[in-house]
């Protein structure tokens, strides 16, 4: 970004004063703007669909809260408190209005604000996903480079077999096997962790097995994808031949030249995957009794707690939008053609 601005300033000294034109003229910013605009209908669609689906589930939430023997007046009171006496469209509108003001409503189950519920459970899931993504991406890039160094070599074959295993294993199966081996047999890691505690080391120990269960399949996908891309770049592209002819060291050609230009598909996939991780988190967290929003989602669905489900769905939808934005900005960082507004091939 900084480089882009410098070049632009050199080319057109007047641009320094014309701030507005520079902002609207920046291709990266225009990309961000377009991405945000297309995200709005998707966000609306997802929240509305969740609203419809949750409303299709039979049963009055007030009745569920108060029990079967509740009086009519008590039910009416709770209905009024939770806003259930409004018609369907009004309720969705009120909820949307609240969302725009940063208020996600009141959960049916404990009648506390969804905001505070999320604030309580979100950190655990954030740490878990961060740990998962950092390790699986780091290892994935490393292994992909090792494998692509010599296609069909020994490292390539081993990584291919391992990633095929990761691609085929179900996360919940992996979680149980890991518990059996590392928590029951050798007892290196805890099988159950009700809270992460203040100590970062205990937190890492508690999160290692769940992160491995979610991360190993991700690692497999990332490795396969990146390896294929690097091999293609190394075999097809002229700039690789040029770099080799210049006498650039082989490992530098691999890491700096080929890998950098192969990262685009991987970034796209990681960004797309962020939203779908909610499914993995929802299955894995209850297995390890982790108090995250995945476990919260499962229990919220089972008691038909619409505001809580909507709150969690919105969080993950926003994470997906943010992930796609970061991906767009990373493209611009990696590819000068995008920075300068020419279309990349």
């Amino acid at each position, binding site marked *: 970004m900084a480089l882009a601005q410098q070049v632009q300033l050199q080319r057109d000294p007047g641009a320094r004063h014309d701030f507005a034109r520079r902002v609207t003229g920046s291709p990266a910013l225009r990309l961000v703007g377009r991405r945000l605009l297309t995200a709005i209908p998707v966000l609306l669609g997802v929240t509305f669909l*969740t609203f419809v689906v949750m409303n*299709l*589930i*039979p049963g009055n939430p007030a009745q569920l809260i108060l029990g079967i023997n509740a009086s009519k007046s008590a039910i009416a009171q709770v209905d009024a408190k939770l806003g259930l006496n409004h018609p369907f469209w009004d309720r969705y509108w009120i909820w949307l209005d609240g969302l725009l003001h940063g208020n996600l409503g009141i959960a049916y189950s404990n009648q506390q604000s969804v905001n505070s519920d999320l604030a309580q459970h979100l950190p655990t899931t954030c740490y878990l996903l961060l740990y998962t993504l950092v390790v699986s991406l780091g290892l994935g890039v490393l292994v992909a480079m090792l494998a692509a160094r010599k296609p069909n070599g020994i490292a390539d074959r081993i990584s291919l077999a391992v990633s095929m295993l990761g691609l085929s294993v*179900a996360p919940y*199966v992996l979680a*149980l*096997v890991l518990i059996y081996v590392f928590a029951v047999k050798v007892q290196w890691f805890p099988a159950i962790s009700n809270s992460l505690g203040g100590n970062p080391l205990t937190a890492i120990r508690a999160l290692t097995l769940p992160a491995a269960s979610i991360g190993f399949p991700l690692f497999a996908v990332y490795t396969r994808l990146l390896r294929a891309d690097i091999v293609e770049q190394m075999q097809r592209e002229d700039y690789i031949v040029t770099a080799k002819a210049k006498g650039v060291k082989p490992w530098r050609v691999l890491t700096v030249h080929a890998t950098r230009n192969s990262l685009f598909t991987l970034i796209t996939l990681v960004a797309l995957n962020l939203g779908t991780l909610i*499914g993995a988190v929802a*299955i894995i967290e209850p297995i390890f009794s982790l108090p995250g929003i995945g476990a919260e989602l499962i229990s919220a669905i089972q008691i038909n707690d619409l505001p809580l489900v909507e709150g969690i769905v919105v969080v993950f939808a926003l994470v997906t939008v943010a992930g796609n934005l970061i991906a767009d900005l990373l493209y611009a960082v990696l590819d000068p053609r995008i920075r300068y507004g020419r279309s990349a091939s």
Partner: protein
Amino acid sequence: MAAQLPDSTTLLAPGSAPLPSLLSARRLKNQKLARTLRLWVPGSIIIALAFICFVWPHIYSIPPGNTGSILAAQEPPFSPGHWLGTDPDGVDIFSMLVYGGQVSFEVGFAVTGVGIVIGGLIGLSAGYFGGWVDTLLSRVIDVLIAFPALVLALAVAEVLQPSETHLIWALSVFSVPAFARVTRAGTLVVRELPFITAARLSGTRSWRIITRHVLPNVIPGIVTFSLLGIGVVVILEGALDFLGLGIQPPQPSWGAMIAKGQGVLTAQPELVLIPSIVLLIFVMSLNLVGDALRERWGVR
């Protein structure tokens, strides 16, 4: 380019496969054999699994997969009459695997089939016609892909009865947009090829171009993707059973077997391990066949 001279850099590039003529006949034969094995070893595993699940129970009588005698509970593997043992309720594990496997096969193939037909139609029209059709359909696909699977699966389980048919429809909501996206991407590539322009210029109707010219060229991509897709669906169906949102007991399913075994993981790990290994082998074979076909047809 006027003369098509062989480009020496591409021929000698490290890692690229040498031309057949540069190889000895023996090595070529080995390579051919390896290619055949890569397709047919996992392929025959899938066929064998299907045979055991669907034909075996008709030839040999096996114990029922949903009830058992408490007298025969927790028998270890290789017990007389129960060669894989029994679970804490005395249900025969092999029978549960067989009947649960039927569900996995049916759901996996049906969901993928629905995805191919409906998603394929959506993707073909979005990719071929472009314009507002594409914009509208793409937005719908985006919404469906961003929609969390669990919410819908539970709604289906609560509103309708949680049966196999309903499970298939619920999971199809996720296979349809995925196939629509893959088909659309393939169609966009094919649409720009010269023979489509030629067909259009010669006055061929749109539906004929789509069915006779575009479709045959996107089918290899769809088929290889669908093999990976079946694996994903089987894992997802297992996840729903595992959470108790899918096939309801006493009807057996692999996911429910794993969930039941979780309770006695320390005492009887084989209750988790046996269905897990079968699930792993099934999904891995599907993935390997997908890879082999992709290599054969040159699809990325």
